[in-house]
């Protein structure tokens, strides 16, 4: 067996496998994108009319008739807010856990990661009703941001822990001998050293809270709905407007897809939950 020929064959086989994998896993995504640029009658027909010309009508209608821009802003406010607060609180906590152990706190964040969302949702909804946080718009935004911390805070703590643990103890102890207290060591020495970790934790937290639909489904009101919930509500409205639905789907999927493409190298390690060092 000629080794260079077998290598070429192996490479060819790999590419064939890649094509199959991409068709299977990206086919539905590509169909969604194509569908968002065509009329419902061309999409939902057997077979779909792939010869039809593309149009941006679905997107225009979505933003003009459906006021989709407002829901886009709601999604950004909720996920952005929850990511920023989760990152700030999570970084402080992860640093302390790395330096001091604090098993109880890490256990609580683990519980938050494992418990089903409805378990938190039932009591939080009872409390929210008491405070009138379901009707009031500003209170409801605050409520939604806070509840999404159940997703972002544990993620940030667990993703940042290995980064803080990777800082040599000697550097930090030297700083403390020079008169820094723990908070100053964190701020001046540890935090600048984990910048890559902050980026990873921020991106993953944002993606997960953006995609998480249960909390907003049960707690948001007409004015604070994120895009995920309004898209779900569209499904129930009588006649399927497939073109509009696919356009909404593309807009919801676009930010997370772009973040995935930019951050893939870091994402896998972050998502692997300690499976890969």
């Amino acid at each position, binding site marked *: 067996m000629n080794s260079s020929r077998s290598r070429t064959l192996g490479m060819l086989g790999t590419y064939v496998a890649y094509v199959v994998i991409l068709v299977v896993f990206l086919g539905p995504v590509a169909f969604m994108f194509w569908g968002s640029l065509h009329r419902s009658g061309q999409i939902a027909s057997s077979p779909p009319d792939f010869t039809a010309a593309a149009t941006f009508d679905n997107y225009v209608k979505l933003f003009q008739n459906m006021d989709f821009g407002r829901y886009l802003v709601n999604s950004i406010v909720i996920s952005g807010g929850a990511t920023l607060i989760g990152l700030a609180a999570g970084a402080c906590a992860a640093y302390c856990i790395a330096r001091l152990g604090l098993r109880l706190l890490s256990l609580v964040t683990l519980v938050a990661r494992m418990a089903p969302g409805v378990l938190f949702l039932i009591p939080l909804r009872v409390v929210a009703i008491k405070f009138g946080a379901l009707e009031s718009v500003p209170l409801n935004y605050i409520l939604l941001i806070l509840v999404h911390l159940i997703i972002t805070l544990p993620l940030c703590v667990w993703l940042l822990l290995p980064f803080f643990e990777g800082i040599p103890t000697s550097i930090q102890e030297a700083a403390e001998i020079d008169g820094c207290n723990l908070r100053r060591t964190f701020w001046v020495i540890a935090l600048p050293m984990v910048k890559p970790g902050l980026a990873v934790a921020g991106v993953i937290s944002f993606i997960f809270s953006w995609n998480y639909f249960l909390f907003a489904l049960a707690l948001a009101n007409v004015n604070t709905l994120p895009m995920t919930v309004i898209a779900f509500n569209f499904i129930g409205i009588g006649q399927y407007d497939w073109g509009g639905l696919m356009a909404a789907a593309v807009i919801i999927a676009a930010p997370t897809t772009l973040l995935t493409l930019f951050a893939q190298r870091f994402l896998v390690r972050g998502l692997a939950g300690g*499976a890969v060092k």
Partner: protein
Amino acid sequence: MAAATTRGPAANTPERRRLRESWALLLPAVIISLALVVFPILYATGLALSPPDATDIAFDQLTVETFRTVFTDPVFWSSVWVTMLIYVGSLIPQLILGTLIGYVLSRHVPGGRILQTLTLVPSLTASVVVGLVWLLLYDPSLGILNYLLEVVGIPRQDWLGDPDKVVWSLILIEIWQWTPLVALIVNAGIRNLPSEPFEAARVDGARWWQTGWHIGLPLLRPVLTVVALLRTVDLVRYFDTGYIMTQGGPLNASTTMNIYAYRNAFAELRLAPGSAAQLALFALVLLLAGLFTWLRRRSELES
């Protein structure tokens, strides 16, 4: 100053001092954890121990009646069955396909990295998007899947409307959405494997599939255990895609434990049974997660 618990000279060890200095850093995370994690779990436990029709915790009449109501409800047990079916039916194909695809992704070819990134897209896309797209693909009369089946001579299927098929249709989506993530983690695991055993096997004339089965898989076992744990936690809590596409129907055929509890608490406003069902689900997650953690420890001790 925070009064540290002083016990003689130990009070001034650096460890103690650091603990004293850390409270301001810990405060935000502790408050969030207490308010959003610990308090709701205690509150939900109180609700579950109140009478079935309670709208708030009834401290003066705590009872296990609600648990009895839930555990004698046939729909609850069917939801346990559906949950386990989706869990096992998705996890095994995800692990097998994910390992095979992970192996393909680990082959170094020009342009491989871009292809890897693209495969990850389904796993990081919102369930609402996945649900919408598959509703269109599965549409019984207009969907492209039935058209493709017809082309190859298989009769059209009622993917989501048939109680016997709906769970399998959801499992198919679940496999499609999460196999890429399994594949990428396995791929990263394969890249971290030592190369010596594989080279030795090649010198001995072993075929690639023999090497993979006898050397690769045993070495990958720790990675696969962690992946299985991650997927277990998500699959047992299955909610999103199922609720979006079928709301648990038809005839509760796709009602998982999480969907059962949600509908109880928010559609029928039965807060106590909803909480009790959620606690049962939480216990199941902890049980299975504990099992995989134990397996992981054991495989670490062996290696």
